[in-house]
């Protein structure tokens, strides 16, 4: 147990990686065996992440230096700079890790039945695990270049999976767009990393933050990094790839790609708060983030209500909900150097934004799964051709209603809790932003009413008389998420106090992140 606790940061990354590597070998034995191995390994990882979470909330930031003789030995003996790659897991990292793992587990269980009749299953599971590895590594790493490598793993696995239904022309197109924008933005990230390396000859995030000088080159690097990550998280006006890719990705993968956007959002926060926080006046970059957030909210939802493709509609909602997260945390970023405002409302705004990440991963992922359940049974994504599905797909309907109410911020669901935090605190910062946020919530409800009306209600269509409820494993996958949504709805105070507030503190408290590596160095 002690051993597992010490080594859990790397095991959480390495075990799914091992699963991805052995999947092509063990699928020779049988499909059942392969599914069992994958699910049990992911459950083991979930267990590890729970252990690590408890440990981190008890003992603070964890540093794990790869290849050193002691895990905590980030700096070589008698030397001032970190040389090896290290994992640095603090509150926000483990928060994102929990989000990712819950979504991945639900999506994997959901996929078991979904891909049963398809070819190329072993490669599907292999890429699924690699996508998970990419996200979790991105969240845990404490090294800039390593972050880039995991970003690439995530992008390539995501693009390959988005084109999984390769006999559909639009699937290939969606995957192609995703890989192109990922490649270009990743190259810009690498270029920015090169600029930072050229100035400080360092790659560790903590050490870079420790010696940051805020020269012009650093600002160029900040702009390149921030905008590349905004592209990956699909903030307006860099969002156009997201509906294309989310719409065509197969079930179980859309929530994963969506969560990988959340991982890019984590990278954005990590860069702006930890790498460039401190003595640098973050008001300007905070306002850039706020403006991107407001644009994402508004344009995302206005485009969403116009769509007639159910998954494109939900993809635009994903963009619009990302806007809330950007808004909440952007307000915190804009007032980061003002302790009074930060204590008054900045911290609450950030709590709201970060709480919204996990809420949104849950209900947005669940809505994507219900959309894909409809596609699984009737073979179309066009809302115009649907109708009366509520007669035959009762569980899917109930799950959809819960998700739609939660995403629209209807009390008592968890979406309301996080949106309330954002409204109240952003109102103190700038009332106009808060009003826009409320209006967006209203339009969200309107557009989900549209989906609900045209897909589930109405008379039973003769064409869909034979439609049955989706298989059990798909229901279990959705059920895991619904259980989490209901838990989060009933205990928002508990969730915010135990996992969200430490994440916010970890973002604000740059010094403890640096001290985790630089230790006693003055």
């Amino acid at each position, binding site marked *: 147990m002690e051993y597992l606790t010490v080594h859990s940061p790397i095991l959480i990354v390495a075990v799914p990686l091992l699963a991805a590597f052995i999947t092509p070998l063990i699928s020779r034995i049988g499909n059942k065996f392969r599914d069992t191995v994958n699910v049990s390994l992911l459950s083991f990882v979930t267990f590890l992440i729970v252990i690590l979470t408890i440990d981190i909330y008890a003992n603070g930031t964890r540093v794990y230096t790869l290849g050193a003789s002691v895990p905590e030995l980030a700096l070589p003996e008698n030397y001032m700079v970190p040389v090896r790659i290290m994992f640095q897991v603090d509150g926000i990292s483990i928060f994102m890790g929990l989000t990712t793992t819950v979504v991945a587990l639900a999506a994997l269980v959901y996929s078991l039945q979904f891909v049963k009749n398809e070819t190329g299953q072993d490669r599907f599971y292999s890429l699924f695990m690699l996508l998970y590895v990419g996200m979790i590594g991105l969240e845990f790493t404490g090294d800039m270049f390593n972050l880039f490598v995991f970003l690439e793993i995530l992008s390539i696995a995501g693009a390959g999976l988005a084109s999984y239904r390769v006999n559909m022309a639009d699937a290939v197109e969606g995957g*192609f*767009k995703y890989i*192109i924008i990922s490649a*270009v*933005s990743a190259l*810009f990230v690498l270029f920015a990393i090169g600029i930072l390396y050229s100035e400080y000859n360092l790659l560790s995030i903590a050490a870079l933050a420790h010696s940051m000088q*805020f020269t012009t080159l650093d*600002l*160029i690097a*900040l*702009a*390149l990094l*921030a*905008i*590349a990550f905004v592209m990956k998280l699909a903030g307006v*006006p*860099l969002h*156009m790839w997201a509906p294309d890719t989310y719409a065509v990705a197969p079930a179980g993968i859309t929530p994963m790609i969506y969560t990988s956007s959340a991982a890019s959002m984590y990278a954005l926060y990590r860069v702006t708060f930890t790498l460039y926080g401190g003595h*640098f*006046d973050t008001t*300007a*970059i905070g306002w*850039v983030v706020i403006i991107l957030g407001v644009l994402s909210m508004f*344009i995302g939802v*206005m*485009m969403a*209500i*116009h769509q*007639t493709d159910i998954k494109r509609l939900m993809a635009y909602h994903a963009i619009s909900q990302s806007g809330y997260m950007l808004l909440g945390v952007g307000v915190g970023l804009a007032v980061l150097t003002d302790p009074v405002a930060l204590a008054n409302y900045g911290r*609450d705004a950030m*709590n709201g934004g970060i709480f919204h990440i996990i809420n949104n991963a849950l209900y947005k992922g669940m809505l994507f799964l219900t959309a894909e359940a409809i596609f699984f049974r009737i073979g179309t994504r066009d*809302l*115009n051709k*649907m*109708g*009366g599905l509520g007669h035959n797909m009762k569980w899917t309907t109930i799950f959809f209603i819960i998700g739609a109410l939660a995403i629209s911020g209807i*009390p*008592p669901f968890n979406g*309301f*809790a996080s949106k*309330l*935090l954002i409204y*109240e*605190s952003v109102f103190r910062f700038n009332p106009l932003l808060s009003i826009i946020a409320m209006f967006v919530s209203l339009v969200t409800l*309107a557009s989900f009413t*549209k*989906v609900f*009306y*045209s897909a589930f209600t*109405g*008379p*039973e*269509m*003769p064409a869909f008389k034979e439609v049955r409820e989706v298989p059990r494993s798909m229901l279990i996958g959705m059920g895991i998420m619904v259980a989490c949504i209901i838990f989060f*709805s*009933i*205990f*928002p*105070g*508990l969730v915010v106090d135990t996992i969200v507030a430490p994440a916010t503190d970890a973002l604000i408290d740059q010094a403890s992140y640096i001290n985790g590596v630089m230790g006693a160095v003055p």
Partner: protein
Amino acid sequence: MSVLTYGYAVWSPIVWLVVLLVLAAIVLYVRSRGQKRYKKGTAQTDIFISGIQVPPAEQRHVPAHNIYWGFFEALKGFYNTMMRPHTGIINDYILWLVAVMVVTVLVLVMVI
């Protein structure tokens, strides 16, 4: 534990659930006072529109593109402007990326 408190406001889902339960109880009570003669599967459940022939299911259902028709008609100018950047061409996506990058560099270098 389920109450979310922060500085200037409080949110408790339990209160809401209690209110919803009370409302549900009232609704059920009112419903139980109603007529008991309603039966499923008889002529009582058939649709009746003043004796006109009932159209088939496909025609009774309003398809998605007709919902909020007036809203889209009123905002036609906005949607036409909105549709123009959404070309679906990959070059334009990269152009947006580079343009926003340049603007951000300008903002950061000029402001700070």
